[in-house]
């Protein structure tokens, strides 16, 4: 047991360091105060304070050095901390000396300021060693950080085809273990960033026993209560989620193989549902089939601004997209002066709504170039069959609303070449009788909506049910 005495002394360092910090700080403060007439009487004690500050600083240096040889700390940081600590001790001795001999009187204040700065830097480095280098700034820079968050993953389209280790587990180890058990630091002499080193284990032996997660030190330590000294990850660091832990256990139970795929391992129900969750959680939102997939450059801002100022709603279809939708909802300028502003938006415009406006066939010709348009709403406007001619170039058109216009079957048939057209709304147009059959045949697979639905009047609609008469 005597062998561990140096280690014990080393462990006194974190306690001892606070002594010189306090005493030297007091010494500096008293020194500055004593320069004022009112508190001149502090002068005699300063030297005593500085003396004990110097002694404790030296003791801290010694214990710190011993600790650095036994503990496993980030090397560069330890060295920096060590030299700064020695500097504190040296400067404190120097300040003590000049104060005692009463020399360099004018410079004393400057040296104490220097001493103070050194103490701050050394203290901060020490804190960074024990709590991590982002410890101080973390709450300021990342206020929303939640220590229990699941690891962000690349999308897993089919979890059965994913590699157990490199797709499911490696991202977890990377995010939550590598900082202390990786290239830069090997606490407990354990490295987890390479398969062979992972299996080799740390200073207490193997951490993974294939087929036996319950006996594997890695799992054991993760499962220890958070308060326990050996709990991993350390309690102030990001913790593993329940799902991540059970996946690690499942992997070890099935041999801790680094190459096999999910489908190669037996999957109990619990794991199966977690695997599915994993797949679900990483599903990217399916883009709408009718929307373009190619990115496009930003739209001409002058035209957008001009339209917006005229009361037209022109907005990208979503954040991170440059494709535009335009809705002429309350235009405050004559339509013919606005419609030509759409021409420069040709590459971006995918949806256009001109409902209920005095739109004419001539105006329609100015959107004939906007070939990216997918959804076009022209209901309750003045357009006719002639105007529909200019839509023939819109070969991406997906949905077309012509409700309440004077178009006829002839006009709509002229759009037959638009293969992507999926729905056409034709309520209250000039289309009658047998025309509907012709149109439906001309656009197979598209919804040709004739409208004119009725909800018949049923006698029960207005009948009121009364409670049955009761006997007695």
């Amino acid at each position, binding site marked *: 047991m005597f062998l561990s005495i140096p280690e014990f002394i080393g462990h006194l360092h974190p306690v001892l360091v606070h002594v010189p910090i306090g005493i030297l700080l007091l010494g500096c403060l008293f020194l500055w105060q004593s320069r004022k007439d009112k508190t001149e009487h502090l002068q005699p004690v300063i030297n005593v304070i500085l003396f004990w500050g110097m002694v404790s600083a030296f003791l801290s240096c010694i214990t710190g050095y011993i600790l650095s040889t036994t503990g496993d700390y980030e090397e560069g940081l330890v060295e920096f901390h060590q030299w700064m600590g020695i500097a504190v001790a040296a400067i404190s001795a120097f300040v003590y000396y000049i104060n005692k001999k009463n020399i360099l009187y004018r410079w004393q204040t400057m040296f104490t300021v220097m001493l103070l700065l050194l103490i701050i830097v050394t203290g901060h480095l020490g804190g960074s060693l024990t709590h991590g280098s982002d410890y101080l700034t973390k709450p*300021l820079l*990342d*206020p*929303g*950080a939640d220590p229990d968050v699941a690891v962000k993953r690349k999308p897993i389209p089919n979890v059965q085809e994913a590699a157990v280790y490199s797709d499911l587990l490696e991202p977890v180890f990377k995010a939550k273990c590598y900082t202390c058990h990786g290239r830069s630091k090997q606490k407990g002499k354990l490295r987890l960033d390479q398969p062979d080193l992972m299996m080799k284990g740390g200073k207490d032996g193997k951490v993974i026993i294939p087929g036996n997660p319950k006996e594997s030190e890695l799992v054991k330590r993760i499962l220890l209560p958070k308060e326990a000294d050996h709990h991993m990850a350390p309690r102030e660091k990001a913790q593993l989620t329940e799902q991540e832990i059970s996946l690690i256990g499942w992997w070890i139970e099935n041999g801790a193989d680094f190459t096999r795929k999910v489908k190669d391992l037996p999957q109990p129900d619990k794991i199966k549902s977690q695997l599915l969750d994993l797949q*679900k959680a990483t599903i990217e*939102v399916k*883009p*709408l089939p009718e*929307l373009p997939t190619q990115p496009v450059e930003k739209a001409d801002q002058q035209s957008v601004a001009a339209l917006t100022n005229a009361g037209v*709603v022109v*907005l*990208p*279809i*979503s*954040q991170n*997209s440059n494709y535009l939708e335009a*809705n002429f*909802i*309350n235009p405050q300028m004559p339509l013919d002066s606005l419609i030509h502003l759409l021409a420069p938006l040709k590459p971006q415009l995918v949806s256009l709504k001109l409902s209920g406006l005095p739109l004419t066939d001539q105006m329609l010709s100015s959107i004939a170039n906007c070939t990216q348009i997918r959804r076009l*709403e022209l*209901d309750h406007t003045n357009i006719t069959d002639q105007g529909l001619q200019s839509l023939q170039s819109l070969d991406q058109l997906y*949905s077309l*609303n012509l*409700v309440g216009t004077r178009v006829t079957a002839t006009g709509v048939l002229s759009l037959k070449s638009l293969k992507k057209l999926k*729905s056409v*709304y034709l*309520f209250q147009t000039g289309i009658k009788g047998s025309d509907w059959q012709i149109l439906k045949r001309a656009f197979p697979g598209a919804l040709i*909506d*004739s*409208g*004119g*639905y*009725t*909800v*018949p*009047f*049923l006698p*029960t*609609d*207005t*009948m*009121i*049910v*009364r*409670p049955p008469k009761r006997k007695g």
Partner: protein
Amino acid sequence: MTQKEIHNKRLLKEANERALQLVTRRHFLKESAMGFGALAIGSLLGGCHFGSSNGVNSTLFDPAHPLAPKLPMFPGRAKSVIYLHMAGAPSQLELFDYKPALMKLDGQDCPQSLLEGKRFAFIRGVPKMLAPQANFKQRGQCGAWVSDHLPHFSTIVDEVSFLKSVTTDQFNHAPAQLLVHTGSPRLGRPSMGSWVTYGLGTENQNLPGFVVLTSGGKFPDAGKSVWGSGFLPSVYQGVQCRSEGDPVLFIKDPAGMDRDLRKASIDAINEVNKKEYEEYRDPEILSRISQYEMAYRMQISVPDVMNINDEPQYIHDMYGTQPNKACFANNILLARKLVEKGVRFVQLFDWGWDSHGSDANLAIDVGFINKCRQVDKSITALILDLKQRGLLEETLVVWGGEFGRTPMQENREGKQNPFKGRDHHTEAFTIWMAGGGIKKGASYGETDEIGYASIGGKVTPFDIQATILNQLGFNHEKFTYQFQGRPFRLTDVSGEVIREILA
């Protein structure tokens, strides 16, 4: 000098004097002492207050244009939402959830296994089972079971998706309604419509973005909190419009004040407010200015859109409206008009579906049937009318109550009720959705053979909220608002998009 100029001058003078009162020596000293400290800490904490963890788009609230249209996170399927809430909770067992097995159990004592460890709102002791009080048929091409109580709706089942296994954890009306609309059974959270208008704004700047219409003679039990804005800026709360009399209270100019004078006074007030803003730079002042301007525009646009009399006769026949009355059919026609004009979220509440059997109006075989007849025709008309106008593609319609009803007959305080009725039930009920990128003629979720509990495809109000937000282009997990030191979201900590019913 015109009357207007004199008026403005007087107001400005008054505002200046008020401003000068603030600038005393004491005020200056106090402000400078506290102000510098606040400046320092403000810059230190910069980004902490509103900052979301990813550091972008910390708040969508632009005080000068609080309702300006905004971008969804990804391209959404729906542009607007009509939420039809049958307040009181309609019985799924008489409408959509066909349970022939329950027929045979009619009048028998409820088995202990269904009662042990459960709590009901009114049922005490051992209640009797109650057979479905309706005849069911399979309808449409999808073969959905719908009862005879909804003869019109039966014809459009191929347009909707049923969720037959919705569950909740609240068996009282007010908390359950709050849960459905705000994501929490307790007061204080913003409603779905508020979240949506906060996130997307509204396209028509002459109308409110979130309108609420009520019918059935009573407000929903949870009161106005079901369309409240909670901790979001109050401009996002639902605007309750009335279908009888003035659509919004005090929207008309008072007698003796013409529209020009109204304009003059609003201009004057805004001018004072602008000076105030130049002085204090409080963004809430800009908000107030834009609200005054919007209110002025709404004086014209709201009575116009809220007037259903200029709709053609065939529309009235289709919806079965009742002229000059406050009724559900009129409200639902208004909902269509509002959505057509670019209103983002329309929420309808119809009270009277609480079929306990405690009186004839609340009897499952009397009042309940009358309620069905009041809404059946107009709901059907809404779906068909939206469809023929090409609006159903981008309008999400949701129908439902706040919970379901028990397969047992209610025995209030252990005694038989005078009429047939069912108690509140949390473990299974039906909600349907249509339009806005929802699958047509689909059904998701199943209940056991008596309709007591979910046996698969269970969803919660959070899942429905997540789905609605998804259709509008929002990831419900990332759509948050920083409040009291943490980011809040509509679905709180749960919710999953019901992808099974998405087209």
